[in-house]
């Protein structure tokens, strides 16, 4: 049994079959990539895992518990964090505050009326947030207004916000989209480093084959809402069906 078990998931938008009969099993402590052409349903699948969408059919089990019907914050509390395709950060707040919020969520749960404590006096969480910023090389930017940063930095910040919660499963929706080559390589290194340091499972949606083949241990190819194949990177590279569907080669 994998840490994440998706069985027979289907999702329609009006008449459009965005997903049909998706089966996916992500093993604990692996990096599992989901690739596929634009519109294949990758983001839709991710949305079904985090409570943003509810699938029309099928089941999604995380650690032997169903996530279906749970709210996004409840699913996060179960140990799933998500990086969005366009970075979702707290734009009006500073970089440090952005990382502090997930620290509070992890410690205090979905709600706590801590109206008199003083953020600055939460020494432990402050240290934790600072350590995380150092890990992603953003410590010097901690007082920056986060909305004013580059897109690459916003993504990195979002990743830090997810990682600081030490999730069991990290979902990444195209984490290097819109990044320069150097930033992409940094992100690969960062993800590799995280993988070595912690017990973490990652499911990553990616367009960039360089990223996929540097990180993934298993790859699922999605086309028109259904998985085509699931295999190791070596086998996927040469798979004729994949070349046809994904790389757009007719023969």
């Amino acid at each position, binding site marked *: 049994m994998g840490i994440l078990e998706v069985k027979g998931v289907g999702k329609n938008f009006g008449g459009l079959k965005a997903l049909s009969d998706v089966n996916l099993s992500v093993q604990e402590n692996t990096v599992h990539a989901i690739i596929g052409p634009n519109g294949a349903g990758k983001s839709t699948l991710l949305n079904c895992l985090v409570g943003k969408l509810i699938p029309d059919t099928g089941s999604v089990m995380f650690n032997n518990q169903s996530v279906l019907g749970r709210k996004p914050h409840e699913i996060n509390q179960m140990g799933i964090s998500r990086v969005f395709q366009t970075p979702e*950060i707290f734009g009006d707040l500073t970089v440090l*505050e952005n990382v502090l919020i997930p620290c509070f969520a992890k410690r205090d749960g979905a709600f706590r009326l801590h109206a008199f404590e*003083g953020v600055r006096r939460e020494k432990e969480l402050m240290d934790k947030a600072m350590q995380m910023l150092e890990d992603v090389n953003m410590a010097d930017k901690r007082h920056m207004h986060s909305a004013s940063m580059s897109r690459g930095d916003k993504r990195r910040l979002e990743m830090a916000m997810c990682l600081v919660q030490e999730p069991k499963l990290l979902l990444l929706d195209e984490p290097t989209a819109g990044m320069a080559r150097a930033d992409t390589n940094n992100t690969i290194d960062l993800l590799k480093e995280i993988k070595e340091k912690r017990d973490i499972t990652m499911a990553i949606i990616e367009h960039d084959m360089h990223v996929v083949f540097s990180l993934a241990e298993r790859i699922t190819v999605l086309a028109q809402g259904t998985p085509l194949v699931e295999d190791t990177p070596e086998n996927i590279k040469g798979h004729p069906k994949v070349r046809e569907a994904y790389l757009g080669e007719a023969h």
Partner: protein
Amino acid sequence: MFGLDSKDSKLLLIVAVLALAAPFILNPFPAGSELAQFNAGYPDLMQRFVIFGIFAIGFNILFGLTGYLSFGHAAFLGVGSYSAVWMFKLLSMNVIPAIILSVIVAGLFSLLIGYVSLRRSGIYFSILTLAFAQMSFNLAYSVLTPITNGETGLQLTLDDPRVLGQTATADGSIPVTNLFGLEMRSTYELVLGAWNFQFNAGYYLSAVIMLASFYMAIRIFRSPFGLMLRAVKTNQTRLNYTGMNSRPYTLAAFVVSGMYAGLAGGLMASMDPLAGAERMQWTASGEVVLMTILGGAGTLLGPVLGAGFIKYFENIFSKINDNVLHGWFAFLPDGMEDLLVTIVHPFVGKGWHLTLGLLFMMVVIFLPGGLIEGGQRLGKLLRRKSAKQDDEDANKSASTAAE
């Protein structure tokens, strides 16, 4: 100081000094002089400054931090006033139980309204709060007459029970509000030459409560709770995917700001023990929105400043009539004098709304951060100028040294 860092302590200290010395600060012009009408150091006006300050401080906790714009907060103010007057009728003329009851009742009332209204956000939330407040206003006028005394408003009478106090004083009049015997209306007058300074017990009670409210607001702003409220404002999606449930946070902010409004309403009734439905009208709700935006939503000092500004305009600008204007421009030739009076006339007296409206528009367009932003920009400009001056001085001394 009191668990605040040095910057916040300084802010609190400044506000405290301003509030406690208000009878002096607001009375700079000698009585009888041409400018005496700009004095604002009268007990009832000063009371209004700080009471509306409390109202705006509380409103800012909701609107400034979470961005949820309520158009119905006057309902909580009104509920607070009614509760306080009932306490004066039934229990005693001591203001403490009255104020406590106002805060509790307003808190419960805002819990109910907030719970329903917060199911929506943005404009729909605003409309829901407005609808609730208008409903309360209309109910207070009609069906709820046994509680609110309808159009007349709720007043004290000579046959109220006042179980812990007295129904009527020895000379047969209605007793007055007090704080353990200290009458709210008692005023000490200090005459210094041409100046007449008034120190009123009611004002000082209100000012101390305003300072406590301000202190609480600082603590909330700097707390993890305050951080979450700001997170709600900037990205609710991210907050939810970070494991936080935004609804209880916004509801808590709504109730806290409702309790502040109730406190203001209770204080208002403690200064003058009557309560009418018009306190709940939408114009009153709109006023606190204006105060907060004018001063600077989301800043600590802004709402207090905005409240002071609007109340000053309402009470001082509205009193400038044509006679006063003629007095000002009397030194000019007659034709010029009349012309100027005609030009200025629409902006003062009954036209004070026009001046305030123009001012508000200017602030929203040019200073989206409110008067506070104006102050900050001014401060920066002055600092840059003085830095430039320093540079020039340094250059000069360097060149003289080189010679």
